[in-house]
């Protein structure tokens, strides 16, 4: 039993398996970039034929990145990373915390680089000078009496040995974040016509609709274009309503969403209805009314002797903006038809009265709605990955020992060093200490 367990364990502890899984993931990922994902079933039949389409269905190719076999590969990678880490971390941790003053003295002379200097000053004085040389170059030494001599030790960055495990952990944190997101979060969509609000969104995953627990109001949607006709900005003026009261307002554009109670609303699309919103105010009585109108129809203001309509439209000098020709009639008769540009407001003067007339095309804004409690874990994982990569690639654990011992009438000073990475850079550090020590040991005072 334990033997069997061990063989499974060592299977997942192997780096060969990591290489193989990375290779498989790379190859498998290609499939979904070549074969369209999440298309309706008939698309596959049309493009690849009946039999291939059936095979695709069996292998979950149309949604392969969520298929059992692709997810299994990802789980395999995660297991692999976890077990490799568990397997190796204790040894590495021992190197991080180990007592280097207990290092075997015989090993010091075999280290590369290492150098022996003979001096005529006393061992105690030599130790003081060695400590000063190390301090000058930024090495803080500890010391202990050993085998009738003195051993000094200084190190930099023992923790940098953990860099590679920071990277491996970061991948697990990212996986965890994405799982939190897919279990406790959702993605949906909602189309809100201007001046309307909703408390319900449609989920992408199962076409279910869910209640938000508050309302989102679209006050206004504006679409602007560049001179060449390309879209410049999609902007929705949104408000959050709790019990019918506005608690938050924000004007959102692509790349600048609105967040409220764990939900984030992204500007995603829009819909045009070939209808117009008209706001009409009688400036004497201060009565105001909002109308949703269609062109070519006569619109009557209920209980008032006012009616109006759109006659036709023309493009303005600014491409893709229209102006509309409007007629308006009240108790004093029919007004001279006037032009108003989409989104503008104008004053219509009549005998002794005037009206404020505002018109804009009626849109609905399409919002992607996301609730993802895992996203911060993903970001923490990403940050940890970049930090870990920098530590793993560019920082190293550097160690210097100095062993001082009386040898006949001389004092032998043995300086040895060791690094786990980037030997040329360490050799420079080592040489600097060595040079300073050499000078200090020569002077007699």
């Amino acid at each position, binding site marked *: 039993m334990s033997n069997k367990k061990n063989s499974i364990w060592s299977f997942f502890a192997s780096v060969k398996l*990591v290489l193989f899984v*990375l290779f498989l993931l790379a190859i498998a990922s*290609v499939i979904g*970039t070549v074969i369209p994902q999440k298309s309706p079933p008939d698309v596959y039949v049309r493009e690849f034929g009946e039999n291939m389409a059936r095979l695709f269905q069996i292998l979950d190719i149309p949604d392969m990145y969520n298929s059992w076999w692709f997810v299994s590969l990802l789980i395999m990678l995660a297991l692999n990373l976890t077990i490799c880490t568990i397997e190796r971390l204790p040894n590495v941790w021992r190197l991080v915390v180990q007592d280097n003053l207990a290092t075997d003295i015989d090993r010091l002379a075999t280290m590369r680089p290492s150098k022996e200097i003979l001096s005529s000053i006393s061992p105690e004085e030599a130790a003081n000078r060695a400590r000063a040389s190390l301090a000058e170059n930024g090495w803080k030494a500890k010391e202990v009496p050993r085998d009738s001599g003195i051993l000094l030790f200084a190190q930099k960055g023992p923790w940098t040995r953990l860099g590679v495990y920071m990277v491996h952990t970061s991948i697990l944190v990212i996986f965890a974040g994405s799982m939190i997101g897919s279990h406790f979060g959702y993605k949906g969509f909602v189309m809100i016509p201007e001046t309307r609000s909703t408390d319900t969104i449609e989920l992408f995953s199962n076409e279910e609709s869910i209640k938000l627990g508050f309302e989102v109001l679209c006050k206004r949607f504006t679409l602007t274009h560049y001179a060449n006709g390309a879209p*410049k900005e999609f902007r929705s003026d949104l408000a959050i309503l709790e019990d019918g009261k506005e608690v938050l307002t924000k004007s959102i554009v692509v790349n600048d969403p609105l967040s409220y109670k764990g939900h*984030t609303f992204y500007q995603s699309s829009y819909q045009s209805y070939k209808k117009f919103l008209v706001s009409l105010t009688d400036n004497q009585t201060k009565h105001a009314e909002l109308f949703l109108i269609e062109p070519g129809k006569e619109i009557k203001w209920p209980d008032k002797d006012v009616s109006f309509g759109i006659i036709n439209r023309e493009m303005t000098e600014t491409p893709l903006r229209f102006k509309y020709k409007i007629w308006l009639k009240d108790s004093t008769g029919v007004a001279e038809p006037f032009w108003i540009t989409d989104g503008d407001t104008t004053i219509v003067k009549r005998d002794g009265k005037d009206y404020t007339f505002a018109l804009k095309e009626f849109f609905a804004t399409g919002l992607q709605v996301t609730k*993802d409690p895992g996203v911060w874990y*993903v970001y923490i994982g990403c940050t940890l*990955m*970049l930090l870990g990569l920098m530590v793993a690639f560019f920082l190293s654990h550097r160690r210097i020992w100095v062993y001082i011992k009386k040898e006949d009438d001389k004092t032998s000073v043995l300086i040895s060093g060791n690094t786990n990475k980037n030997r040329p850079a360490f050799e420079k550090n080592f040489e600097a200490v060595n040079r300073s020590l050499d000078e200090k040991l020569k002077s007699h005072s």
Partner: protein
Amino acid sequence: MTSSQLFGISTLGYLLASALYIATLIFKTKKSGIAASIVTLITFLAQTAGIGLRWYESYNMGMGHAPLSNMYESLVFFSWAIVIFYLLLEVKFNNRLIGAFAIPFAFTSMAYASFGTGITQEISPLIPALQSNWLIAHVVTCFIGYAAFAVACGLGCMYLMKSTAEDKPDAGLIGTLPDLSVIDDIIHKTIIFGFLWLSAGIITGAIWANSAWGTYWSWDPKETWSLITWFIYAATLHARFTRGWQGKRIAWLAIIGFLSVIFTYFGVNFLLSGLHSYGGS
């Protein structure tokens, strides 16, 4: 002087520099090597001025965005990043022969930007999805990574040339190339550098996607191919660190990895469809 003229000069400059570096490799003449370095440096300065000028021109046209928003601008930046990376490498390792394997990439990128079919050179305004501060961070990190991988690929070719030639009695021009162990070491360091920037590029892209669409990862072809590239280099680094791979195998992996970069960069735009279609024209 316009930015287009400066980019035209840059294309010619990198062609001349490529020729000089290759001449240095073949004829082992020191003078041509120094000339190659000088031409590269001057061209690089002209190209830098061109990028700055294009940025300035976009402000004059009332748009004001960094010149990193379409295929043309990315090719120019790719070439620029290759050159600055190479120049730093030339100084650090004090070797000009690498230029023969690096600067031709910078020239090819510029030439393709200038003469490639379907590549628009006009400065065009940013569509809403691209109006983000993440644009600069994402494009710059990705292309520094790509540039390092391009140079690693050049070094991989250099390694294979030298190791093939060493088997034959007459080493010829290959004799002047750095030692195999030196090339191997530079390839390794270059891949490490590129891998760090590629990781940063994928991460900045994910953060940007989340702020634009509410999804940090959607298995879009561009995203997926960048991850495939990441897997290839991750496997390369593990093969070296833990299984001691080096030499020819790593040289081949540097070439294969760069093919994946090229596909992520061009193949996805031209052959596959997806969210990341801005770079297409």
